[in-house]
């Protein structure tokens, strides 16, 4: 039997809204824990001490340069993705590469636009065409 379902979600952005707004605008807005000093991009929701991210005064929002070092990268017909570390961040992040034809070890955050606030990366620096 056939059944058709079309859904448009409007997900609550909650306490990480500043980070998601940053992704839309191409700004690397990271969380800096006030107790540990650890900088996370994407933001952690708790710290190693067990404090929850959303508690009052747990963290500050800081803006990083948006430059990132590529740690690992994978390419395929479904897109190119990389595990990167943003300059100034203590964790790593997974993002989509918008210029998969380029190779290089450095990337820069690109604006995601108004729809889905994903982490979008552009390879920069010693890039070249591979095809």
């Amino acid at each position, binding site marked *: 039997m056939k*059944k058709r*379902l079309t859904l448009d979600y409007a*997900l609550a*952005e909650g306490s*990480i809204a500043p980070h*998601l707004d940053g*992704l839309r605008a191409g700004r690397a807005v990271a969380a800096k824990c006030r107790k540990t000093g650890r900088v*996370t991009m*994407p933001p*952690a929701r708790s710290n190693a001490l067990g404090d929850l991210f959303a508690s009052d005064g747990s963290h500050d929002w800081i803006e990083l340069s948006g430059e990132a070092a590529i*740690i*690992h*990268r*994978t*390419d*395929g*017909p*479904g*897109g190119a*993705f*990389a*595990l990167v*570390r943003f300059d100034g961040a203590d*964790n*790593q*992040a*997974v*993002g*989509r590469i918008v210029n998969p034809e380029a190779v290089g070890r450095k990337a820069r955050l690109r604006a*995601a636009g108004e729809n*889905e*606030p*994903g*982490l*979008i990366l552009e390879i920069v620096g010693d890039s070249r065409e591979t095809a």
Partner: protein
Amino acid sequence: MVLVAGTGMTAFNRRKDGSGFREWASEAFAEALASAQLSRADIDALVVASESDFFSMQLNPASVLADDLGLFGIACQRVEGGGASGQLAVQAGVAMILSGLARRVAVVGFEPSASYLGGEKVSELYGYSFDVWSDGMSGVHSTALYALSAKAFMARSGATHDDFASIAVQNHANACSNPLAHLPLSVSSDDVRGSPMVSDPYRRLDCSPLSDGAAAVILSQEDHAPEARRSAARIAGIGSANDRVRLGDRPDPGHFAGKRQAAKRAYAMAGIDKPERQIALAELYDAYSGAQLQAIEALGLSDDLLAEHRAGGFALSGRLPVNPSGGLLGQGAPVGATGIAQVITCARQIEGTYHDGLQLEKLPRYAVADTHGGIATTCAVTVLEGAQN
């Protein structure tokens, strides 16, 4: 002590006969109940495993299946933990018996592949297995995340894609003797390397399929099992543990730390202190070929992982046979049923009733079943042992 009193599973494949998950679950349950030599009235509780309502279009499936299976007035629940759902359901059933809440528990897992939705949609839906508020918004898919983890593992360990390809070859070959397997294939490493790229290093033959199917076990407190089933395989230890949901938050994105912790707990409960010596069979979560090596490492099943792998140590005739069923790569993966099927393989191997051509000559004393959801984020490990212990 909890016995695996009965086992039953359907073929794992893509159904074209018009049947659905309710028929598959009934078939698996009936076989398990018969092999346990029990009747419906003997069952105190039902635990159902299914990962996603996106595919079944059925919320609260435990209520529906209880009705279908003729189980009324019993304790009834669903367990969900992504790819680990099936084995977490087994562990929930074990906990019910050990706590005294139930004497005999039916554990039934299923999943429709929903292949009619198309690969792109299914891939997107499974992408919601990860952190939707971060990774999910970038559009990253399961294979890409596994590929990034594999690359971290390769960089640290020295493993190559040739190592991964030989796992795909072996698991598909094992599946050739498994009449219930989805992808029994005689392929070479060249075939794997020549199959279409999905997300490097993973090619199509490195990736497990999504299957239709169901699996069921009947767990029983030892004193409440039929006399003839008192020698059935038993659950010696269970353990579960999580890891950071995002690869980027892990100290080593190529190491399955949650799996290691889950295994430690299961081994401790089973009284195993040298898993690399005491475990004689492993059914591991090879969602992707490289994940099998990552799992062997995390489970502490080898002193010299790559050397032993390259020497055939994990082949059917090796020191530690891994995935004689064919694993997810060969047997297939109806997600909610997967972990239960692993337990079934271990139990039947221990009892000596596994498929001809795959049954180990020396019955394993201990076997381990390993399942996870996410990229080894929600991990569940179960140790089974023979009655002779």
